[in-house]
């Protein structure tokens, strides 16, 4: 292994510019003559709009325009779309209500886009917005997930008369019913998976621009997938054809899923740039982000696990209601269906599974993918059930899991997925040892002596990453393929530019992708540039989400590198006067087998471009190759996390004492970056379990619209984690890598809640388990102890 090759913890190449303030984010981009947009948002969760009077605002000095939904309709601008078709049990397509970028006649959540003011400065636009009078008739609102489809609930969209987008199923109901009929024990749980706000450090922003000469648009935007944004803005919203629309996603400060989607604000900025004949800029403030970024999670689930007399699992039954918010966001329909139910088998051999999922509209912000997207929700169901089932049948939770682990691969689950490899007992054993699980009762007794409640919780998670085989997702309703592209441009001096359809917004691709190229071509990592995020540079790509950039994006680079090597060997054959079949490539040198004739990579590149040693008719000059890689399967990272904590029953304050994470990500490119991803994921997972929760009141007002009320995890709330890995290389991609970006966020919540419920001795601990929640939960434990 070289110092900068695959497997080396190379310091991130991009960090110097980030930590010295030299990054270039969308808000750093200012175009000549730029105007500013301010969005007028609905103060009501549900209302009809009788009229909008913008006459006073339009007269203000510095105001260029005020646009409403009528202006979009007049220009035939299409609505925002949901790109994944889900069918209900009866085969009917999902009921997608129209989602105009500016409201047309009705608003459906607090923060919904009503109108936009465009002015010389942000201050003028904001000032003018206060002079726009919107005449609302307020309607009753529904925000509650569980009762959104109940008779009498206010209806959001006429196309969905009971607020139900779809009622979907997966698995074999009869086989599952039969399994439950012969069960010795059934564990039942009611589970709420709390709604989260994504909170990337950089809020969303957009700059739209129109060039009259070329009749083309440019949109700078905070996107995880600029090519998908261009596709949607062109083909569905109708801003301009693709060759007349350039989308640039420059440095992006985190996304966690929330920047996958195509939003109203960026649509308006690029559309309005032509209307006002000036570039138009918008940057979200933090409260706008809380109101209008797509949220995550928000499930209500009834789940049952059936076991025989030995503790062997016979079946799993799940009924989930998923809150999709007021409109269907770009991929929202897929998250609680195909990204959720296929993971319900966990790491376990479960012969029969049946899942039903109802997606419902409510008067809340749209809900879509957020770090893990469906897989954290599935893991939470499975790992809570496993823990509670073990407790109910008097088994050690670790042994109970071990008894039911999948141990033979490939393993076809009853819910689509075919696990291609893994070693679940190995990760469990390693985690138990690192966590000193054997001595937990001593530590519990020690805490009890101090009047504190100690608990330990296990989470054995699996996720499906590296999304995804295009034909497979197409058969499930996806509107796109989920391959990735790469292009390798070798310059005449031997430096290399890699153009990738993956997008980096914190993941460190400029380092890891360069490590791969450096390793393969035997050139310095400093001679490799990674180019991404600009549709004028990279031809097409599918972007970054679902832990796919390594498994899919890097596999595309490998494929392009294969082509580069093949072409280079032909050039070398001419230069070294040998058959290409006799050329070997090793450590950056091409040589003729069995001789001392060789040429280094940089000299070979020059030969490819000067083309003096071969005829351009038999071999094309130049050294540039592209590839599209379509995966053959999902990848299946898995692992075991163990949380140990202590609760002060007097105050409800919890302290996480020890965190053990043993993850199998397959081969690692850069262990330091992987560890960073695990840290961040665990922080977000602990955040969901203990701190974070979006709260709307019953009228649909958002109570958690700033950091005064929405608690993000802070460094002081967390601890140093004990992190280890196991490695079963992924058999389905050339690098043997599985993906690591979401693991922590998937693994952590059930580990925390399993530890909390262990500490308090009952299962009634909702997320987020704030001090108030834990004080009440602990009082029951204290009263119970006193009674005994």
């Amino acid at each position: 292994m070289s110092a900068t090759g695959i497997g080396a913890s190379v310091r991130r190449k991009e960090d110097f510019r980030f930590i010295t303030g030299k990054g270039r984010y969308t808000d750093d981009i200012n175009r000549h003559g730029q105007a500013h947009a301010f969005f007028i948002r609905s103060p009501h969760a549900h209302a009809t709009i009788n009229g909008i009077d913008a006459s006073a605002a339009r007269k203000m000095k510095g105001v260029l325009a005020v646009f409403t939904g009528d202006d979009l309709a007049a220009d035939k601008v299409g609505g925002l779309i949901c790109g994944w078709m889900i069918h209900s049990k009866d085969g009917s397509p999902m009921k997608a209500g129209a989602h105009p970028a500016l409201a047309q006649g009705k608003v459906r959540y607090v923060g919904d886009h009503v109108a936009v003011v465009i002015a010389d400065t942000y201050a003028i636009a904001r000032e003018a917005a206060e002079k726009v009078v919107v005449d609302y008739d307020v309607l009753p609102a529904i925000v509650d997930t569980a009762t959104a489809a109940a008779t009498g609930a206010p209806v959001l969209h006429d196309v969905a008369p009971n607020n139900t987008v779809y009622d979907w199923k997966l698995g074999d109901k009869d086989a599952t019913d039969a399994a439950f009929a012969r069960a010795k024990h059934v564990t039942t749980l009611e589970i709420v998976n709390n709604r989260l706000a994504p909170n990337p450090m950089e809020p969303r922003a957009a700059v739209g621009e129109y060039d009259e000469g070329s009749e083309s648009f440019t949109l700078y935007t905070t996107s995880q997938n600029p090519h998908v944004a261009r596709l949607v803005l062109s083909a569905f919203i109708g801003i301009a054809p693709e060759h007349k629309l350039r989308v640039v996603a420059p440095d992006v400060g985190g996304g966690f899923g929330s920047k996958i989607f195509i939003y109203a604000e960026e649509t308006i900025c690029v559309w309005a740039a032509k209307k006002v004949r000036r570039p138009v800029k918008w940057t979200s403030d933090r409260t706008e982000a809380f109101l209008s970024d797509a949220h995550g999670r928000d499930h209500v689930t009834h789940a049952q696990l059936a076991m025989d007399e030995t503790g062997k699992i016979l079946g799993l039954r799940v009924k989930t209601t998923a809150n999709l918010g007021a409109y269907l966001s770009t991929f929202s329909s897929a998250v609680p269906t195909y990204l959720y139910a296929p993971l319900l088998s966990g790491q376990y051999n479960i012969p029969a599974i049946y899942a039903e999922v109802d997606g419902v509209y409510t008067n809340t912000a749209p809900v879509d993918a957020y770090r893990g997207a469906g897989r954290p929700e599935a893991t939470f169901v499975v790992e809570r059930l496993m823990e509670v089932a073990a407790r109910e049948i008097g088994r050690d939770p670790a042994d109970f899991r071990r008894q039911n682990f999948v141990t033979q691969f490939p393993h076809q689950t009853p819910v689509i997925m075919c696990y291609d490899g893994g070693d679940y007992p190995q990760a469990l054993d390693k985690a138990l040892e690192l966590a000193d699980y054997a001595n937990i009762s001593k530590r519990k007794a020690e805490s009890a002596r101090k009047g504190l409640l100690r608990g330990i919780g296990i989470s054995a998670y699996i996720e499906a990453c590296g999304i995804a085989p295009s034909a497979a997702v197409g058969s499930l309703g996806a509107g796109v393929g989920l391959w990735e592209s790469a292009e390798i441009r070798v310059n005449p001096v031997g430096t290399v530019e890699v153009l990738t359809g993956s997008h980096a917004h914190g993941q460190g691709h400029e380092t890891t992708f360069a490590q791969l190229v450096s390793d393969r071509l035997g050139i310095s990592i400093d001679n490799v540039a990674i180019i991404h995020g600009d549709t004028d540079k990279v031809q097409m790509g599918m972007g970054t989400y679902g832990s796919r950039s390594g498994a899919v994006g890097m596999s595309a680079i490998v494929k392009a590198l294969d082509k580069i090597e093949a072409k280079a060997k032909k050039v070398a054959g001419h230069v070294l006067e040998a058959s290409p079949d006799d050329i070997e490539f090793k450590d950056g040198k091409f040589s003729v087998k069995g001789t001392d004739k060789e040429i280094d990579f940089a000299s070979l590149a020059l030969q490819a471009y000067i083309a003096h040693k071969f005829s351009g008719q038999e071999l094309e000059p130049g050294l540039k190759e592209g590839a599209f890689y379509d995966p053959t399967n999902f990848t299946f990272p898995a692992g075991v996390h163990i949380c140990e904590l202590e609760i002060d029953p007097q105050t409800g304050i919890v302290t996480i004492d020890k965190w053990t994470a043993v993850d199998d990500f397959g081969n690692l490119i850069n262990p330091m970056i992987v560890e960073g991803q695990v840290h961040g994921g665990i922080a977000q997972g602990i955040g969901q379990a203990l701190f974070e929760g979006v709260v709307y009141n019953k009228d649909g007002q958002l109570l958690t619209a700033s950091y005064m009320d929405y608690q993000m995890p802070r460094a002081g709330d967390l601890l140093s984690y004990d992190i280890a890995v196991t490695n079963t290389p992924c058999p389905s991609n050339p690098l043997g890598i599985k993906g690591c970006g979401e693991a922590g966020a998937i693994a952590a919540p059930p580990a925390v809640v399993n530890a909390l419920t262990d500490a308090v001795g009952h299962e009634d601990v909702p997320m987020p388990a704030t001090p108030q929640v834990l004080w009440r939960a602990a009082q029951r434990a204290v009263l119970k102890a006193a009674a005994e």
Partner: protein
Amino acid sequence: MYEFAYHRPGSVAEAAKLAGDHTDGKLLAGGQTLLPTMKQRLAGPSDIIDLSRLDDLRGISVKDGVVTIKALTRHAAVATSAEVKAAIPALAELAGMIGDPAVRNKGTIGGSVANNDPAADYPSACLALGATITTNKRAIKADDFFQGMFETALEEGEIITSISFPVPEKANYQKFRNPASRYALVGVFVAKTAGHVRVAVTGAGASGVFRVRDFEAALEANFAPAALDGKSVSASGLNSDIHADAEYRAHLITVMAKRAVAAAG
């Protein structure tokens, strides 16, 4: 932010005159509450009277058993003051618990006390230590100063110049933070001064900081945590929000008060 006229007076008298002349104006000390509210357009004062040039309103002195802190003294200065740490360590600790380093290096004691945010820390210290708030016009006892949420005895054109704290025999402040904002969800300041005990609670009361006479009597008889066994504050009149309902706050007041007594020694 809405437009406003900006003034930067050179003396307290000039500041008081400006404040009297512009009754829709606001005095700007550290700005840690005022400026965020203005940025969010929740406040739109006609005039801002910036006190930052009033250098004689800064400083700490200890004399004759009284710690006097001038109004524009920043929280960080109080938290790190050797004199305060020696005389009333609980007061320095309280100042060190306010906000974050950025807030502590801008925010001032006078600004905090004048604002009387129901979740601010300093009002509890003023009340428990029996402080005197001195203005350009008069001296006001803490018991008379705090008059409800964001309400004080300050009149138009009246500016706090300093706050004096008698040095107690024992004192401690226990703060249970709001998990999101880190303001006091419940903050309890317990002090024993010249044989008398005062217990002041911030963060919990719907009308701002208040004293708990029942606790004070019990602790005056026996200054020990056990003296508060079985004692509690009624939940009625306490705040309820998504972080803590009134019952939980009432419970925390007793817990924090006991911990303060234990820590005060």
